[in-house]
């Protein structure tokens, strides 16, 4: 009988129940979408912030201390210490290797131009294709690490297609103007170790010191500086977690100062300092340090964005909770007659509540499930429109939304049911 009553209530007053279910579904979809976006916004914005370029630089150990200290006149060659090119792949093998989005090696040297002027020449990766032992594939290089470069004419060096011939080069806009060269031209450069004719594939505007430099492939620069297989520095772009007290302590006092438990937490969290530490472990004789300008600001902006989303989420959860409980209350109040009658024919209070609650919860579950999938859709719409990538659906959102919906519907219905039960059936049935 219980089920017959519920079935009757649910199926013979479809429009009413559908309206309640739709409202619950809307609320649930709002909660689902907002919670998922809130949980994923950190990662998404973090990815976007990679536009600012590398947040970690790796240099050889000796250099990091002495680094050009004695050569403030930068035109002198300082081939003191080097990192090994072969070690580069190891960066992706660290504990947080998955968080390493991009990295590129640099070889710096000074070359003499035909007019006798010295210019800084940097060899690097542009879109170097890496196939790692782990089976992962990656295009690494400054094409994405210098997202703000504006290539005025010509184009980026494409290492994979090998366009631009043997010795392709990109020239800074300031230097190109000074020399009067443009895309397609040949540029003769000379160092103490040899000379080469570079083919200019593009002119870039970097809005900084790099505008006076020449960028070429790693191989060309190594040949010109006679440092085959060696590199001067590495820039790494990694997804990091904003620093907290623990990370700050590890960064200033050194990881050795941490307690074993703290150390483990620190090591297993993607703080910029722990990633640096792990890079140092992976690459022999290296010092990795965070680029504060990028790392610090990233943290601030991530924190703020997340906090903002959390507050907006709270507002919308609050709104949908009120919306649902409101409607549920209204729909229960509507049933005063029915509840009065059931009391009059001798139904006990708890059995009446049981029936009404079961109906509402069934409706809520149906609405909630529909709402979850609607919310999934909304989250994906936002993900694709804003970030051009899917929002990851966290499984933990499901129980949160489920509990929320159940609590809200119960909160919306129980006080109303109790109020109706307190009424004497006589009042309800004879009232009017």
């Amino acid at each position, binding site marked *: *009988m*219980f089920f017959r*009553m519920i079935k*009757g209530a649910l199926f013979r*007053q479809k429009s009413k129940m559908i309206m309640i279910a739709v409202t619950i579904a809307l609320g649930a979809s709002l909660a689902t979408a907002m919670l998922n976006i809130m949980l994923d916004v950190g990662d998404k914005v973090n990815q976007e912030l990679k536009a600012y370029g590398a947040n970690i630089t790796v240099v050889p150990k000796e250099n990091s201390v002495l680094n050009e200290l004695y050569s403030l006149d930068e035109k002198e060659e300082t081939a003191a210490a080097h990192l090994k090119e072969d070690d580069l792949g190891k960066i992706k093998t660290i504990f947080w290797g998955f968080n390493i989005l991009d990295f590129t090696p640099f070889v710096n040297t000074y070359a003499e131009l035909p007019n006798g002027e010295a210019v800084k020449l940097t060899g690097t990766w542009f879109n170097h294709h890496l196939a790692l032992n782990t089976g992962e594939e990656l295009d690494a290089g400054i094409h994405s690490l210098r997202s703000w470069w504006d290539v005025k004419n010509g184009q980026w060096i494409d290492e994979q297609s090998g366009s631009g011939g043997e010795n392709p080069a990109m020239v800074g806009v300031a230097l190109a103007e000074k020399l009067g060269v443009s895309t397609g031209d040949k540029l003769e450069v000379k160092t103490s170790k040899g000379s080469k004719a570079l083919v200019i594939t593009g002119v870039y505007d970097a809005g900084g010191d790099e505008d006076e430099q020449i960028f070429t492939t790693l191989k060309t620069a190594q040949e010109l500086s006679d440092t085959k297989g060696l590199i001067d520095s590495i820039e790494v772009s990694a997804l990091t977690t904003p620093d907290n007290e623990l990370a700050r302590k590890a960064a200033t006092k050194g990881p050795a100062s941490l307690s074993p438990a703290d150390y483990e937490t620190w090591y297993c969290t993607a703080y910029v300092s722990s990633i640096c530490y792990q890079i140092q472990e992976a690459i022999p004789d290296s010092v990795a340090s965070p680029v504060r300008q990028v790392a610090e600001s990233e943290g601030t902006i991530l924190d703020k964005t997340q906090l903002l989303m959390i507050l907006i989420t709270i507002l919308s959860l609050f709104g949908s909770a009120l919306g649902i409980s409101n409607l549920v209350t209204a729909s229960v109040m509507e049933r005063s007659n029915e509840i009065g009658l059931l009391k009059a024919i001798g*139904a*006990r209070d708890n059995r009446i509540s049981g029936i009404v609650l079961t109906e509402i919860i069934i409706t809520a579950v149906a609405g909630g499930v529909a709402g979850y999938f609607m919310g999934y859709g909304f989250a994906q719409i936002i993900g694709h429109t804003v970030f051009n990538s899917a929002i990851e659906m966290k499984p933990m959102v499901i129980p949160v939304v489920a509990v929320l919906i159940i609590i809200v519907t119960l909160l919306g219905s129980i006080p109303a049911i109790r109020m109706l039960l307190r009424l004497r059936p*006589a009042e309800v049935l004879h009232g009017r």
Partner: protein
Amino acid sequence: MSLLEIKNVSKIYGPLKALDGVNLTVENGEWLAIMGPSGSGKSTMMNIIGCMDKPSLGEVILDGADIAKESGKKLTEIRRDKIGLIFQQFHLINYLTAVENVMVSQYYHSMPDEKEAMEALERVGLAERAKHLPSQLSGGEQQRVCIARALINHPEIVLADEPTGNLDEANENIVIDIFKQLHRQGTTLIVVTHDPEVAEVAQRTVVLEHGRLVKEIINENFEE
């Protein structure tokens, strides 16, 4: 012992005395009509007899127990076991079919039994309409479902509040016929009404005015 004894019962709402020292005795198997104009205290009387309300003063002894002293939970139980209610507004649950509406009453009393519920509907001549929703039934049919529901648990008293108030003459006659049949079967019937035609067919009629019993008429030509 009488089935129902109302001793000096008053019901006071603020300054208003809805019932004022009413004494009434109803014997087992009796058919009583309570008449009176609007505001005479009929509904209050019906609520008190139907265990849906308690008197402010006095005793209401139903089947030997004073319901004025019982708790709300106990009253629910008495109502369930001893009283069958028929309403002017029918009060059927609109998303349940006729037979299901009857079964609801069984459900809260003991166990729902569809066969028994069908038999009850048959007795009021509605067997073929059993699967219809209230909205698909006429007023008279709805009232008959209501009667079937009131009878299903074999109550000691059937209490009807203006049972014909919303019905046309043809349906009124059907309902009165059913009451006659019930009386013959020995059911105690209390009908609250302001319609003299409905009161006339009862064994005894009491008239309420301003909360007092002012007149008692014994129907001389009552046909058993």
